[in-house]
């Protein structure tokens, strides 16, 4: 059961701190209840998956975490601070990064420029400094460029000079992750990262998600339809159906939950 929220970094029994806590999140669109009073925790350095049939409210929940939607009621606490009313860019500054289900890169910018745009919040250069091109700003921009290339290397891309929109599909997915990583997030939200990928690409991406935690210490919230991915890398799985949380637990627990089987796994590919 979720604990009553204790403000700053409520600790779980095992002394694990939560990076994100959601309490009583509800979102209605007119008469439609898209998400109904969902409680949700993401422990630090955990990979948590959100699954559920189409229309279950997963992406709506995602959009509320990232700030594109404001919940009708309930609140979000990120690293101890209430972010419910914060704008998306403020959440990004606090350490939240995300990718989109339908890739949304800056199409007519190169891969490096996409990552540099992602670094925006971590660069200090003021408008005045930018206009005047002061030495501090130029040095910072040079370092940023090097870091951008390093990040592209981390996700397995080379900084090619083509427009992002001309990259192969799988590379676009990776680039979007690199762009999200550029803002140094503590929590990364991935919305169906393996959608449309072939088995090899999916395997490589799954491995990349694992490395995000191992090498960069990130927490990951994942929406995913590919059950093999979910079951292999998730620490915890939460199942939504018709906007309600119907199950939560380790992948094994969830897999055996009859309500889940009924609502979801019964009709999905289970690998």
């Amino acid at each position: 059961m979720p604990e009553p929220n204790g403000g700053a970094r409520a600790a779980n029994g095992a002394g694990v701190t939560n990076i994100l806590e959601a309490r009583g999140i509800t979102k209605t669109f007119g008469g439609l209840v898209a998400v109904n009073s969902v409680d949700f925790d993401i422990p630090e350095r955990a990979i948590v998956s959100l699954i559920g049939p189409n229309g279950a409210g997963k992406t709506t929940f995602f959009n509320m975490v990232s700030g594109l939607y404001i919940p009708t009621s309930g609140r979000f606490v990120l690293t101890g601070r209430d972010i419910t009313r914060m704008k998306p860019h403020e959440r990004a500054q606090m350490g939240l990064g995300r990718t989109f289900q339908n890739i949304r890169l800056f199409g007519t910018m190169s891969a490096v420029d996409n990552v540099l745009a992602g670094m925006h919040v971590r660069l200090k250069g003021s408008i005045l400094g930018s206009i005047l091109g002061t030495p501090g700003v130029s040095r910072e921009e040079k370092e940023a460029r090097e870091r951008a290339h390093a990040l592209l290397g981390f996700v397995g891309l080379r900084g090619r000079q083509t427009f992002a929109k001309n990259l192969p599909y799988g590379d676009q997915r990776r680039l979007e992750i690199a762009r999200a990583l550029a803002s140094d997030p503590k929590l990364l939200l991935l919305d169906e990262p393996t959608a449309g990928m072939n088995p090899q690409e999916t395997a490589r991406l799954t491995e990349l998600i694992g490395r995000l935690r191992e090498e960069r210490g990130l927490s990951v919230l994942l929406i995913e339809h590919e059950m093999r991915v979910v079951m292999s890398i998730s620490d915890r799985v939460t199942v939504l159906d018709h906007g309600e949380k119907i199950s939560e637990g380790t992948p094994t627990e969830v897999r055996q939950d009859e309500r889940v089987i009924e609502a979801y796994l019964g009709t999905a590919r289970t690998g």
Partner: protein
Amino acid sequence: MTTGDATKTLSGALLEGLRHSSWQSRLAVAVVALMLALLLVQAVQDPGQFTSQLLIGLTNGAIIALIALGYTLVYGIIELINFAHGDNFMIGSFVGLTVLSGTLFGLGLFAPISGDSGTIIKVAGVLIALVVAMAACGLLNVGIERIAYKPLRNSPRLAVLITAIGMSFILQNVGLVWKGPAQVPFPDLISSANILPGDAIVFRWKDLFVLAVTIPLLVGLSYFIKNTKQGKAMRAVAQDKEAAAMVGINVNRTISVTFLLGGILAGASGVMYGLFNGITVFNVGFTQGLYAFTAAVLGGIGNLSGAVVGGLLIGIIGSMADQYVGVRWTSIVIFAVLVLVLVFRPTGLLGDRSATQGGGSGRA
């Protein structure tokens, strides 16, 4: 930002026109070829005059291009035709004039700067007038966006468009109250004498002044957008506001910066227009704004290089029409060219909004 592609795209457009060999396109190509041929004849008959007209056109075009950039920058980022932009340009010329006349809110700060003042005073006066007008127009543009456009960010686009037209009327009437309905003379600070020896080709100090102000502004703008953090943020916001917000870019602030840049360019353009033509008037923003908007559309709205190319083209076509067709025909010629270009290349000469926009095709 792909100036290098300009010529390629232009010739591509011509080839495309030929390949679509419908009778309309053949006619269009024939008309364009005929006009170019007639121009060539004039150029051969009196090369001096032709070159002088070309230079005048370039100067006029530079003034238009600076305004056109403001239209295209704003369109690129929020897809709004900011009809108040031309009037912002007018306010720029009024602010410049006020600075040069030495009065502010009825206070005489210093003696008016006129053609009789010393050179140093003239240079300083012009520079101060430029800087003050640029700052004033930049802030005015930011203010307009905050007050009139930002609250309508999520409204239907038509609502914002009508608001922009309303803003245009408000500014025009502010100008009317401020300087009256008649044309106001600008002090004649920059010599109209020819720089070049002889009378064959005329290139005046005024023309040099306009180019000397415009070129650094264009280079600066290009550097800003290509290389700086804010510039990248602008490009990112132009392509996808939500994705930009998700990487921590403050979308509202970036939009403000865009309006600031547009206003700064309009302010500079306004002062130059006044000094160059010797007059300004409360509705100058309408006519010049219309030419600038035409230039932006001609080059491909949303495309920064397009705005510059379009501005220079409109300037040159205008000056050629003034000389070889007749001043009363100039507007007709300019808008005929616009119609021709849009019929055969609806996205403008330099194509889609690729400079600032992400094309947007194939992706939600």
